[in-house]
């Protein structure tokens, strides 16, 4: 059965896109069928996986505007996962959807056409709590929260959980919080440890291990248009994402 996971945190720069690209590549390399959906108008996931967002004819924007079916906009990537890419036009989708009744369900209904082809669908949310993020939370079975272990990110988790509860009540009662994934983690600082401990206990959230250590390798990978699993496959970060993917496939986290 397909598991659809929204990777969300309205705080920017917490490694949502890196998590989607890396987990997607790790899952695909273990033989899973994976679709990644770029829901950020900045199209960072699309760029990170080797596509030029400015040169795309079809994107998730066209799907959300009901111009084409989801399968028409999906492309394959060299790292293994399929990708529904984004362009800057996605910013217009947000505006266009805002006045439409049933706007929260547009992505869910679009994905219904392709869901059965995949074992995993990972949704890369934009760093905001707008209509696109609501669409992701409505289409998802679970939400994975990348958490940069510092105070402002901690605060963002509380806001996101408020939104998750609204979504559970209004548009997707099946939605579950998979857990928080510590990213950009620096185990040497007391602050990172304290944030992680407080988030976990305050919200009763599962901390998904291993934490993803801060590394320059993640910043270098998008330049090559490949995930860190290819550009620095033996790095600690790549190994950590492989381990998280392995635990997801084994059913040790989520579901």
């Amino acid at each position, binding site marked *: 059965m397909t598991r659809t996971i929204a990777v969300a945190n309205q705080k920017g720069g917490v490694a949502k896109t890196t998590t989607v690209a890396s987990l997607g590549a790790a899952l695909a390399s273990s033989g899973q069928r994976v679709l990644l959906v770029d829901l950020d108008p900045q199209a960072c996931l699309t760029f990170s996986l080797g596509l030029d967002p400015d040169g795309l004819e079809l994107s998730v924007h066209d799907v959300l505007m009901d111009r084409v079916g989801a399968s028409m906009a999906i492309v394959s990537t060299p790292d293994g996962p399929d990708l529904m890419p984004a362009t800057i036009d996605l910013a217009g989708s947000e505006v266009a959807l805002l006045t439409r009744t*049933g706007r929260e369900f547009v992505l869910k209904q679009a994905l219904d056409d392709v869901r059965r082809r995949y074992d995993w669908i990972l949704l890369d949310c934009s760093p905001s709590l707008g209509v696109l993020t609501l669409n992701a939370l409505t289409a998802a079975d679970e939400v994975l929260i990348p958490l940069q272990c510092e105070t402002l990110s901690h605060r963002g988790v509380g806001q996101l959980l408020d939104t998750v509860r609204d979504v559970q009540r209004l548009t997707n*009662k*099946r939605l579950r919080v998979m857990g928080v994934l510590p990213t950009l983690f620096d185990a040497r600082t007391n602050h990172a440890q304290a944030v992680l401990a407080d988030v976990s206990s305050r919200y009763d959230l599962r901390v998904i291990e291993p934490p993803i250590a801060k590394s320059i390798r993640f910043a270098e990978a998008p330049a090559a248009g490949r995930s860190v699993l290819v550009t620095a496959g033996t790095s600690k970060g790549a190994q950590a994402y492989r381990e998280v993917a392995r635990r997801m496939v084994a059913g040790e986290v989520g579901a």
Partner: protein
Amino acid sequence: MTKRPRAGTDFDRLRPRTPQTPVEPISSGTPADQQGKRALFSATGDEATPPAATGSVVVSCGDCGERSALTPAQALRYAVPSLHLPFLKRDRWSWMQCPACGRRTWVDITIQL
């Protein structure tokens, strides 16, 4: 001399948001700002269901409780194979794959007119 705030590791300034915090009801008449965060939602009740367009097929799953609005073509894909026992079962007399949870189970099928 102003006292410099201590850079500590407690998080007292963060608003308490526990999982037990009751969700403010949207249609309770209490002041939820309809032009605030609520404006993002078009759904206004507790139904958690997508609006079904005229002519769409609505599948209500007995297992997951989800209602899925499908086009006739989508419904046909999920309904192969299926079993329909309207005279033997009172509720959910169609057996097919639920579009929401993916299980083959007993469902209600209605056509939105």
